[in-house]
Structure formats: structure tokens, C-alpha cells
């Protein structure tokens, strides 16, 4: 026998298949098919956790996903430690190792339990009240202490080694919940031939048929009928069954998110299986068959291990063959707990007494209990439970007061009634309605194409449930386009039915305020806390919830919300619907980050873009930097070089001889068509109509507000064809911006836009020797200054492949940009490199490129501009067509504030000490002696050491900057104030003679 509390002949598990497992280091034996909870209970273990706030000993409340207490850590190896696993859901496998949480040094003796004694400190709203003052203590003292003391499990500290997969699926009818209702609906829909998905969170379908021993359908035991029906569904091609799958979120247009737990239940999952699979299902119709959840009774010390829901005790007995005690008490306000008492009694467990809050209930369950000789006490309450690590007694009193009697028990089964699971319905934006007679919220107004059936719809009784569900399944299929149903409705031969129960605190929970009668077990919220919240002025249930944290734990108040609401309503003296219901939010049960992230981790998180020349740079030992998704060669260190040495050498070499630079990441867009020039006139500030084919122009693009959006050199290849370049980071947004205007504002223009960024590799060859390097490889292009002057473009061949050869410069040196089809990029680069070697040229990276352009005062959009800089601010007025009557930004840039005096303008800065390099982003002030906070008049946008200038150089945006030439300004830094002089933006070759040098 696997466990002293396993009852031979009871349950559905095969005793032959044992599984060893451990809990807190202690070894136990269970049976395959057990949950960790049932296996521990079979061994008589009830104490499994400590509560969140008071560190009170806790056991199992439930046998399912609603479990608030029995959260454990499952450890497969150092990296596979999963905290907060509900032991009632975790399936047992041989070798499973579980640990209790939130206790120190041990579960039975927990130092934190002192919180239970000091509990007045931790009453409702204690976070807000106790830790308000002093403010500084929150960060240094309170928060770390609270985080350490409170809390659930410990998050894993290593990267998750498991993988997670994701699927999209479409179906006609999605049935959520695989109990009697869900199976009946799925059968009805599937029999019509439409595509059906049936999902259930349990390992086996059947729902509450797992414990409902009184159910008989089509002549068999309810659970056996369910398994037969599942076998039938499994054989149908149009049906997909998803067990161990929780629908956690219901989104717009019947889009439902589900997580399938693929391998957490396996002993050796193997690397080929994902741990979980995310299903994103779009369904024409959704059938909600999510059932109902039993509520506990709210009385003093109702959280002692051994006190659990009556249906849970039945499940442990009827499905797992486990008795939750040897001498159980029952405390109820409805019939369903009687069935538990009856089943346990029949299995040989002593039922000490049934305590029923109702005065004189009648019915077959009561008659049967009485016939079995079980003591029944009507009109009485359990006012307190005895015991600490395990319940030892229940104290019974007439509900209106009177003599107490203490009954020894080792378990209490309780039932306050059933709460329909309207979570998904509510997430679908449906509106729930309160049924005053049955005291429950049920689906009211639907917002989507879905229907609720069975217990989640407030339908009582198996017959009514099957009728409703089967009809709903057939209708959903029909609405989704099915012809006609061919099947027959399952026939219910026998069933159980449950009455209504109660909401709120039972007599044992007050009005005395010293007792702990738990409403929300996971967040340690008592009836007293809810009353206190109302007394302290909370009126809305949303406020009560946040003040007390009722329903805010990981179980999202599945067992506690209705009790909390009823207590608040009673204290407020208002009917329940007027107090309202808190919002149900996704996820229904906690979802791992892994399942949401799926494969989008590591290298698959974001694409990495590499240029055609990347492998060459890599082989040369280049250091790369990330520019958006691109990897760009940053600098090329030689042995012993640090970054500065490499960059200095590259900068000097370019100006002395020449350098090769991979500019392939530059955005490139081809603007083609009869109206191409007209379009360019509208999208750029510059004039284009008169630009001759074969010539280039530096273009500035504005947004409609008049601020610089992008820039780049544009070559006119033909009257109707422009080769436009953009910044590396700006390419997609420039393309979007152009398309937007072309499609919506200027659709009359006959123009076609094509992104050609990845089609052309670009090799910049810059420096006095650049022409000498390129010329030997070029065919069909006259390379003389007369034929190919600065800012011109020619098409021809290089190394035998087509090229668009630009004469242009981003260094101030004579320069070229060789565009070749990307496939030839590396070959042409290598040929140019070989030529370059003859002249002592170097390869240079983005850092040297930045320094060289800054020496010339060429701006980088996004670095020297920030979205609030006009062409005038940047000193680029010359690039704005003065005679133009329209371009994007023409009106915006003439706004009063944009032409006002004193705007920040781009200028050069020279530090008084040439060796000092400013920090980019540093603030600039006029008077360093002024009081703090100082008036900041600008900031440094670019700053480098320039080996070519033999000093530091910087660009800055400074208020009225161009009127301050020669003025001394100050840059206050933590280690002292740096003096700077305002200068022009060009630091090297001011006359620009080297462009033809």
C-alpha cells in the first residue's frame, strides 16, 4: 500500500504502479495518477505550507486549480526549480522532489510565525499605514524586510533551460472545460463534423464526475461515461483534445489563450518535448463549461491543516482512494457536504458529526446520512477549530448562541455552497448578473459569440446540465456553419443535486474581532479585515479589495471573492449587487513567463542584421557595436591597441592616405517614376527639379512640425530615378513616412518607392588616395574631377559587377561610396582592400567615422538633433529651398517659437584645456557660480578626442549659440567645472579644400 490513508478498493488508480517522491527531504511512496496532494494525504501529511503574512501552518484546501494554500517548490535540478506549484495540480512522477515554502528553519517550527501573534500590526491596510513614514525608510528598511519576510516561493536564479512552444489554431467550436457539460457540448458539436477543440485543465477529462459518485449517464458511472465519450471524440478527425490545458485569457473576437502543460508531469521529459505550449485559438463559437468552485466556511481558525472543501475530500476518496482523516467532522450550509460524509462513512471512515447551519433542511442526502447513523446537528455552527499543525477538534454551538461542545476530529470537510466560474465569461467582456434567489453571479449579457453551460451558468443538476450543454454544442456548431447533428444526447440515469448554501462569515467569525476567520487564505485576509476596511471608509469593493488585498493573491480569490463581497455588503448594509463585483482579469491561473515568451529568447529574441562585409571584418578582429538590429564594425584594433589607439590610427590614416568603411547599413530607398522629382520636392526641404541626372545633393527631411526627421545624400540617376540614402536607424520610418504621404496626401503623383537597403552593399573609400585605390578596378566611368566632381554619381562596373559609384564624402576628404549588389559586397571589398594595401590604407569603423565627420561639423541626425531641432537650429538653412511653396514641414518650421530668438543652436565647443574631452549629454551653463539649480543653456551632443586636430572637439546645442562665438561657457561636472569656448562647427580644413585633395 502506498500510504496508510489509502483505502483499498476505493479510487481509480492502479495500486501496482507506485512512484517514489520526497517532500522536504522525507521520502514517500505514491501511485501513478496521484497528484502530489493526494500522495501526501495518502501518507497522512496535511501540513504543507506556511501562510503569506502570518506564517500560519497550512494544508490542502482543495483538490484542484483553485488551491490557495498548498504551494510548493518542485526541483528537478539546479536550474529547474519551480516555485508556487499547486500540489493539488502537480501530477506525481517517480523521483519528484518537492519543498515547502515561506518557512524557516522548518515547516513545523517557523520563526516567522511570530507574525501570527503580532498580527494587530498586520491588519487590513497595514502596508499603507505602518510603513508610510519616514519616506526614506521605505526603500532602505521596510520594503526589503517585507519582501524577505512575506512572499511565496523563491524565483529560480538561473536561466530557464527548458523550451516552450507556441501554436496558433482555428476552430469552429472551442469548448472550455471538460466536465460533463463540456463533453456533452463537444459531442454535440463534433457529431456535426465541424472543427472542435475541447480543453480541460486536468490530466483526465471528467470534471466533477471525478468525485460525483451518484452520477450515472448512459447506464454507466459518470466518470466512466466521460472516458468513453473522450475515446469517441479522440477518434474523430475534426476534434482536438487538449488535456492539462488551461484557458487563461479570453480576448477580443473569440481569441482565447491557453497553456498546455506538456511535460511537467513526466519523470524524464526529454529535451525534445517543450515544457509548455501556448495555444492561441481563434474560434467561431466558444462554449464555456468551466463549472463551479466550492466555497469554504468562514469561521475561527478555519485554516488549520486538515480543514478542507467537502468536494476535495470526496475527490481524494473517490478518485485517488485516499481518506483525508480517520475521524472527520463536517461543517456545511448546503447539501453537497453530505455526499462527502456519506462516501467517507461508506468507505469506513468515522464521521464524528455533521454540523449544518441551516435550521431544518430535508432531502435524500440528509435522509441517507441519517440512515447511515451519522450524527447531524441542524441550526448549529462550528465556532472554532482546535489544533495547530493539524486540526484536532471542532467546537460546536447553536448558531444563535448557547452551550459549546467540542468534538475531536482530525479533519473538517466544509461547504458554504458553489460559486459559478464566470472568470472567462467576464474576461470576454460579458456582464454578469446577480441572481438574488440563488445568491450567485451568473452570465448576464454576452459581448462575444459564446455561451455558458452547466454549473458556470448557474444550471443545477446533471440532467439539466447535459440538456443545456448538448443543445448549446449543437447550436454553436450550426452557428459556425454546420449542417445538422446526427448524434444522440447522453441520457442521465442518476445524478446529485446541490442546494444554495451561504455567503459571508458564519457565526464563528464574529462580530468578535480577535478571531482569525479566513476569507482569503493565500493573502491571509480575515472577515475582520474586510469589516475593518469598511469601517475605515472603503465603500467600493475595488477599494476593499486593494485595502485588504482580498482576492489579490495568485489564486485571484477563486474561493474568497464572494465571501469578501458578502461581508463588505453586510457591513455596508447594502445588497450585494450594489456593492459590485471586482473585475476578473487574465490569467485565470498563473502563467509562466516561458510560455508567453516561447521561442523568442536569446538569438531569437530580435533579429541580428549583418552586412555582406561582416565576415571579413570579423576575420580582421573588428570590435562590433549594435546599431539598432545591425552589427557594425566599431573599430579594428591591431595587437596591443586599445580603442583609443585604434581609432586615432584609423582617423589619421584616412586623412593621410585613405580608409575603407563598410557603409552598407545606410538606409537606401529608390524613388522612381515620372513624378519622382515632384515627390522629392515635397518630402525634402531642398530643391530637386533642377538637379541634373548624375549629380547628388545632401537632403533634409522634416516632419510636418518643422523639425529634422532624417537626412542623407540623394543621387539623381535619371530624370525619373533617385537613389535616396537615409540614416541607418531611420530607414524603416523614412520609408513609412514616404509611403504615408505618397498613398494618402499625394496619391496623384506617379511614383514608386522601393527599399533597397539590403540590395546594395556600400563601401566608402575616403582619403587623398581614394581615387587611386578605386580607379584600377572601375570600368566605364571617367574618374577625373571634371567628369566625376564632388557630389556626383555614375553607373558602371567595378571588378566586373554593376556599381552605382558616388563621389561624396562624410569625412571631408576626397571620397567615394561604391555601391555594388550585396552578393558581391565582400568580393569587391576584398579587391578594394588589396588595392588599398598598396597605398597604406586602413579599414576604419563607426567610431572613426564619427570622429572624422565631427572634425568637419557634419551632423548625425538623432545624435546632434533630438526631434526638436529645425534646419536653422542645426545651421542648415542653406539646404532649405527658399523659393519652394510646399514641402512637408514648411509651415511647421515657420511657427513663432521656431523662429524666435534664443533657440538652441548647434555650435562647436573647444575646451580651454585641449586634453579634456567633454562628456556627451553634459549640461552647459553661462555662470558656474550661480545658485543651484543652475540655468542650463544647452548640452553637449557629440564629443571626441581628435588626433588630427591634436585636441578634443565637441558639438553642442546652445541657446543663441551662433551669437556667442568666442564666449566662455561652463560645463559643471562632478569632479569640477570645465571651461569651454564657443566655436564654429568645423574643426578641420575649414575651407573644405581636401574634398578635391
Amino acid at each position: 500500500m502506498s500510504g496508510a490513508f489509502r483505502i483499498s478498493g476505493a479510487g481509480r488508480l492502479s495500486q501496482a504502479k507506485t512512484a517514489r517522491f520526497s517532500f522536504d527531504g522525507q521520502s514517500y511512496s505514491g501511485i501513478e495518477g496521484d497528484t502530489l496532494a493526494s500522495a501526501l494525504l495518502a501518507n497522512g501529511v496535511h501540513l504543507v505550507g506556511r501562510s503569506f503574512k502570518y506564517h500560519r501552518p497550512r494544508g490542502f484546501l482543495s483538490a484542484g486549480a483553485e488551491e490557495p494554500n498548498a504551494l510548493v517548490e518542485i526541483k528537478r535540478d539546479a536550474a529547474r526549480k519551480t516555485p508556487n506549484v499547486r500540489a493539488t495540480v502537480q501530477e506525481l512522477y517517480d523521483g519528484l522532489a518537492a519543498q515547502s515554502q515561506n518557512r524557516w528553519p522548518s515547516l513545523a517550527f517557523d520563526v516567522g510565525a511570530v507574525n501570527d501573534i503580532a498580527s494587530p500590526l498586520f491588519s487590513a491596510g497595514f502596508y499603507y499605514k505602518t510603513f508610510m513614514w519616514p519616506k526614506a525608510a521605505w526603500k532602505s528598511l521596510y520594503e526589503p524586510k517585507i519582501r524577505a519576510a512575506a512572499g511565496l516561493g523563491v524565483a529560480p536564479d538561473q536561466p530557464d533551460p527548458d523550451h516552450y512552444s507556441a501554436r496558433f489554431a482555428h476552430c469552429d467550436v472551442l469548448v472550455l472545460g471538460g466536465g460533463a457539460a463540456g463533453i456533452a457540448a463537444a459531442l454535440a458539436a463534433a457529431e456535426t463534423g465541424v472543427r472542435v477543440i475541447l480543453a480541460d485543465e486536468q490530466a483526465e477529462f471528467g470534471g466533477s464526475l471525478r468525485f460525483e459518485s451518484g452520477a450515472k449517464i448512459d447506464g454507466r458511472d459518470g466518470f466512466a461515461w466521460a472516458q468513453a465519450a473522450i475515446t469517441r471524440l479522440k477518434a474523430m478527425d475534426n476534434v482536438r483534445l487538449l488535456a492539462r490545458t488551461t484557458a487563461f485569457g479570453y480576448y477580443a473576437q473569440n481569441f482565447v489563450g491557453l497553456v498546455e502543460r506538456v511535460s511537467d508531469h513526466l519523470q524524464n521529459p526529454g529535451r525534445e518535448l517543450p515544457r509548455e505550449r501556448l495555444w492561441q485559438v481563434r474560434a467561431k463559437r466558444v462554449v464555456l463549461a468551466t463549472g463551479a468552485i466550492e466555497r469554504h466556511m468562514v469561521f475561527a481558525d478555519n485554516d488549520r491543516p486538515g480543514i478542507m472543501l467537502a468536494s476535495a475530500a470526496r475527490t481524494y476518496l473517490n478518485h485517488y482512494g485516499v481518506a483525508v482523516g480517520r475521524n472527520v467532522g463536517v461543517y456545511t450550509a448546503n447539501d453537497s457536504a453530505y455526499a462527502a460524509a456519506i462516501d467517507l462513512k461508506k468507505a469506513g471512515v468515522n464521521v464524528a458529526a455533521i454540523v449544518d447551519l441551516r435550521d431544518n433542511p430535508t432531502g435524500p442526502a440528509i435522509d441517507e446520512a441519517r440512515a447511515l447513523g451519522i450524527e447531524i446537528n441542524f441550526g448549529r455552527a462550528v465556532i472554532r477549530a482546535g489544533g495547530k499543525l493539524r486540526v484536532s477538534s471542532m467546537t460546536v454551538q447553536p448558531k444563535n448562541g448557547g452551550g459549546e461542545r467540542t468534538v475531536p476530529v482530525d479533519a473538517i470537510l466544509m461547504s458554504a455552497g458553489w460559486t459559478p466560474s464566470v472568470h472567462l465569461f467576464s474576461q470576454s467582456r460579458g456582464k454578469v448578473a446577480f441572481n438574488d434567489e440563488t445568491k450567485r453571479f451568473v452570465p448576464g449579457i454576452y459581448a462575444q459569440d459564446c455561451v455558458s453551460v452547466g454549473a458556470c451558468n448557474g444550471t443545477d443538476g446533471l440532467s439539466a446540465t447535459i440538456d443545456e450543454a448538448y443543445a448549446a454544442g449543437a447550436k454553436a456548431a450550426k452557428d459556425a456553419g454546420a449542417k445538422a447533428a446526427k448524434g444522440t444526447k447522453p441520457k442521465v440515469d442518476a445524478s446529485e443535486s446541490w442546494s444554495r448554501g451561504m455567503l459571508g462569515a458564519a457565526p464563528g467569525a464574529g462580530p468578535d474581532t480577535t478571531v482569525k476567520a479566513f476569507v482569503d487564505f493565500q493573502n491571509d485576509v480575515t472577515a475582520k479585515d474586510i469589516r475593518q476596511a469598511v469601517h475605515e471608509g472603503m465603500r467600493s469593493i475595488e477599494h476593499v479589495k486593494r485595502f485588504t488585498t482580498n482576492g489579490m493573491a495568485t489564486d485571484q480569490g477563486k474561493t474568497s471573492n464572494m465571501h469578501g463581497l458578502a461581508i463588505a455588503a453586510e457591513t455596508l448594509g447594502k445588497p450585494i449587487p450594489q456593492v459590485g463585483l471586482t473585475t476578473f482579469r487574465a490569467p485565470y491561473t498563473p502563467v509562466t513567463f516561458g510560455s508567453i515568451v516561447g521561442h523568442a529568447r536569446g538569438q531569437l529574441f530580435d533579429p541580428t542584421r549583418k552586412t555582406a562585409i561582416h565576415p571579413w571584418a570579423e576575420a580582421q578582429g573588428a570590435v562590433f557595436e549594435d546599431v539598432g538590429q545591425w552589427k557594425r564594425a566599431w573599430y579594428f584594433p591591431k595587437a596591443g591597441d586599445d580603442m583609443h589607439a585604434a581609432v586615432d590610427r584609423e582617423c589619421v590614416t584616412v586623412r593621410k592616405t585613405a580608409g575603407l568603411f563598410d557603409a552598407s547599413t545606410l538606409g537606401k530607398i529608390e524613388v522612381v517614376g515620372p513624378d519622382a522629382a515632384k515627390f522629392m520636392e515635397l518630402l525634402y526641404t531642398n530643391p530637386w527639379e533642377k538637379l541634373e541626372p548624375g549629380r547628388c545633393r545632401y537632403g533634409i527631411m522634416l516632419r510636418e512640425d518643422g523639425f529634422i526627421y532624417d537626412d542623407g545624400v540623394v543621387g539623381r540617376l535619371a530624370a525619373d530615378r533617385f537613389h535616396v540614402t537615409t540614416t541607418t536607424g531611420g530607414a524603416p520610418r523614412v520609408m513609412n513616412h514616404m509611403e504615408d504621404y505618397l498613398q494618402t496626401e499625394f496619391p496623384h503623383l506617379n511614383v514608386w518607392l522601393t527599399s533597397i537597403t539590403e540590395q546594395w552593399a556600400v563601401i566608402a573609400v575616403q582619403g587623398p588616395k581614394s581615387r587611386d585605390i578605386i580607379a584600377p578596378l572601375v570600368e566605364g566611368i571617367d574618374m577625373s574631377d571634371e567628369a566625376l566632381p564632388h557630389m556626383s554619381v555614375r553607373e558602371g562596373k567595378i571588378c566586373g559587377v554593376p556599381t552605382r559609384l558616388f563621389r561624396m564624402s562624410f569625412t571631408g576628404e576626397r571620397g567615394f561610396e561604391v555601391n555594388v549588389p550585396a552578393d558581391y559586397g565582400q568580393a569587391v571589398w576584398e579587391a578594394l582592400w588589396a588595392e588599398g594595401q598598396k597605398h597604406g590604407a586602413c579599414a576604419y569603423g563607426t567610431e572613426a567615422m564619427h570622429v572624422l565627420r565631427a572634425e568637419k561639423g557634419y551632423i548625425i541626425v538623432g545624435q546632434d538633433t533630438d526631434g526638436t531641432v529645425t534646419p536653422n537650429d542645426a545651421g542648415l538653412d542653406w539646404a532649405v529651398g527658399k523659393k519652394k511653396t510646399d514641402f512637408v514641414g514648411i509651415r511647421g518650421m515657420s511657427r513663432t517659437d521656431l523662429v524666435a530668438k534664443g533657440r538652441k543652436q548647434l555650435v562647436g565647443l573647444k575646451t580651454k584645456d585641449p586634453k579634456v574631452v567633454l562628456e556627451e549629454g553634459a549640461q552647459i551653463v553661462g555662470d558656474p557660480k550661480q545658485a543651484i539649480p543652475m540655468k542650463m543653456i544647452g548640452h553637449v551632443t557629440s564629443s571626441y578626442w581628435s588626433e588630427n586636430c591634436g585636441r578634443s572637439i565637441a558639438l553642442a546645442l546652445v541657446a543663441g549659440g551662433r551669437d556667442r562665438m568666442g564666449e566662455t561657457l561652463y560645463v559643471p561636472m562632478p569632479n569640477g567645472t570645465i571651461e569651454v569656448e564657443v566655436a564654429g562647427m568645423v574643426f578641420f580644413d575649414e575651407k573644405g579644400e581636401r574634398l578635391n585633395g
Partner: protein
Amino acid sequence: MLLIRCPYCEEERPELEFRNAGEAHIARSANIAGESDDDFEKFFFIRSNPKGIIYERWRHMHGCARFFNAVRDTISDKFIMTYKAGEPKPVKLPGVAK
């Protein structure tokens, strides 16, 4: 995830393929350079941000890449209809009471 009907592809496609592009039917003046400060303010800065029916621009970014217009209810998030760029603002909306 919403389904959005692209009026060019004539298909409902998932939201992931689309990108919102702000309010629709805000015409750029043919004489924008001559606009008054007030008119430019209205054109460039002022948006209606209604609770209820909104006319907005979308782009089928990862599809046909066309810009189009849509009518959406900002309360329910439901798309009431979509139509091609340049078509007039619909007066009668299917399934929406006046």
C-alpha cells in the same frame, strides 16, 4: 488580438499585421505654407480622442502595406468598418444606432 479587415486585401487579418497611424480625415491644406497659426494648430496638434466612434488610419504593414481608414468603437474596441484611403467618411455605419 483583434481581427482587422484590410479593404485592399479584402480579408480579415490579425492585428499583428497592422499599425495604427492616427486619426483619419485630417486633410493637409493644398496651401499649407499660407495657413494661419490657428488652422495649422487644428491640423497638426488637435485630435478628437473620442469615447465611442473614432475614424482612424491604419496601415497593413506586414501585408499589402497600404494605408486605409477604419471606424472603431473605442469603448468596445470593435471595428465597425474599414474602407480605402481617399474614400469619403462614411455617414451611415453598419450596426450603429444614431
